[in-house]
């Protein structure tokens, strides 16, 4: 196929910017851009193939979607209590929140120490690499799986949930904290070393004050994650709380109205957390 000379991008190095169809190109197609495009196209093709080859059995796709929307309408348009009362629901919600708080706190405390060992500028290369490697392995396994792994020895329930969720929080926060420590200006560490300050003094007087904002915001992000996971753990690992009620409503009582109530309550809490974290960050930054 003959390509007209005007359609062919000219070489960049002949001194003039490349022209396509008489128009100036904004950027040159690089290898990485090409890779991104190929990936996107491949994903689109796979999605279409996937939908065409699904084994739908008795389910009709469009009818299924329609039913889902009807269920959504029941859940969200007519929430109603039946098996428990509002105070009971709040109590369960608090249990779920506590699970989130507890695992985040445990995770944050341990991660704070580990991250000092993991940060290359505060530790030595061997220690840093081994801590980072270990954390990467722990992080690669999803939280839910850790809970199930610990359930082998602790039994399904809140203990396994606390240990498993803390475990994953530690590795997540260690990475986040240590990266914010590594962003610290090397010159500040040098200056304090030059004053004769020791390691702990440098940590408390320079490293922590400088990275306080990012420590708080990472911890809060993890708390939001942990709150979501706590809801799921109530159902999947029998850790109790609002998630368990939701599971019972959906799988046993098939009470969509009550599910609606629970969903709204969880949503309210999530929004409250978001608002709190924004306020907290503002206050710290000021």
């Amino acid at each position: 196929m003959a390509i007209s000379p005007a359609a062919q991008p000219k070489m960049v190095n002949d001194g003039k910017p490349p022209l396509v169809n008489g128009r100036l190109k904004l950027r040159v197609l690089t290898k990485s851009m090409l890779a991104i495009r190929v990936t996107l196209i491949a994903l689109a093709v796979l999605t279409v193939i996937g939908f065409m080859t699904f084994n739908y059995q008795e389910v009709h796709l469009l009818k299924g979607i329609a039913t889902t929307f009807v269920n959504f309408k029941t859940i969200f348009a007519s929430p109603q209590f039946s098996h428990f009362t509002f105070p009971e629901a709040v109590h369960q919600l608090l249990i779920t929140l506590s699970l989130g708080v507890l695992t985040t706190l445990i995770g944050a405390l341990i991660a704070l120490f580990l991250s000092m060992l993991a940060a290359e500028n505060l530790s030595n290369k061997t220690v840093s690499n081994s801590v980072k490697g270990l954390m990467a392995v722990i992080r690669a396994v999803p939280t839910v799986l850790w809970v199930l792994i610990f359930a082998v020895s602790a039994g399904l329930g809140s203990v396994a949930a606390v240990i498993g969720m803390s475990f994953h929080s530690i590795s997540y926060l260690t990475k986040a904290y240590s990266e914010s420590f590594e962003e610290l200006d090397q010159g500040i560490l040098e200056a304090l070393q030059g004053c004769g300050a020791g390691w702990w003094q440098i940590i408390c007087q320079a490293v922590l004050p400088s990275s306080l904002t990012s420590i708080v915001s990472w911890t809060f992000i993890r708390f939001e994650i942990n709150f979501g996971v706590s809801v799921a753990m109530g159902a999947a690992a029998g850790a109790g709380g609002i998630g368990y009620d939701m599971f019972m409503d959906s799988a046993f009582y098939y009470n969509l109205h009550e599910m609606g109530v629970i969903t709204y309550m969880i949503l309210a809490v999530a929004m409250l957390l978001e608002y709190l974290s924004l306020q907290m960050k503002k206050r710290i930054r000021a």
Partner: protein
Amino acid sequence: MTTLLQFKKVSKQYGSSTVALSDVNFSVNEGELVSIIGPSGAGKSTLLRCINRLIDATSGEIIFDGMDVLSIGRRNLKKLRTKIGMIFQNYNLVERLSVFENVLHGRLGYKTALVGALGFYHEEEKARALEILKSLGLEEQIYKRCDQLSGGQKQRVGIARALVQEPRVLLADEPIASLDPSSSKVIMDHLKNICETFGITVLVNLHQLDVALNYSDRIIGISSGRVVFDGMPSALTHDAIRQIYGSDPDGLNLNVERPKEVAQKR
């Protein structure tokens, strides 16, 4: 005059190939203001950092105040560092802390790990820090956070932090490289004043030849890690400048005589 600092055949090698200092010999007397000049990459910063062991020299001997710097142990290293104040081109302050807190960091070397980490300081230390801040014209800024200060103010905080250490020597690594001419003059005047009134020895890395000529008692010129000039400012001839910077002084827009006259008018 007693010798405070002595370099004997000091060399520093980074990795296996980069030689930053080779066979450096010089000595500095108590109360002198010595400028170290040389082109970028000559090894000026490396030289200063060898004195307080922020960088370990590869070989040779550094004697500071009778101590063999390269062979002292951990405890003595801390003691050595309290006697050496240092200021930097980028100030290197903890931006989120107040001026006062940053200045008191200079006392950390005198404290046990726990007391220092918690930031407990004696009343006398605080009073002394305040006095120093006042003498540097910073009394109105003491409770400001350091990220709210101008460059010149930050550098004065840096000087204050070094001074509360009660050091014998002040190392300044390009202290005026990021400052405008008038702030530069303020900083250099403070350094000169510190040297003259407290008798603190000052070693300052400079890129501004005119400033070096105006303020120093002595100039050390280094090039590619070697000392190629060591003498009074008046002895810095065109030949010496050519040897330090590797090109003709006329081509560098420098006039050795002229800046001196300017300085006298200031």
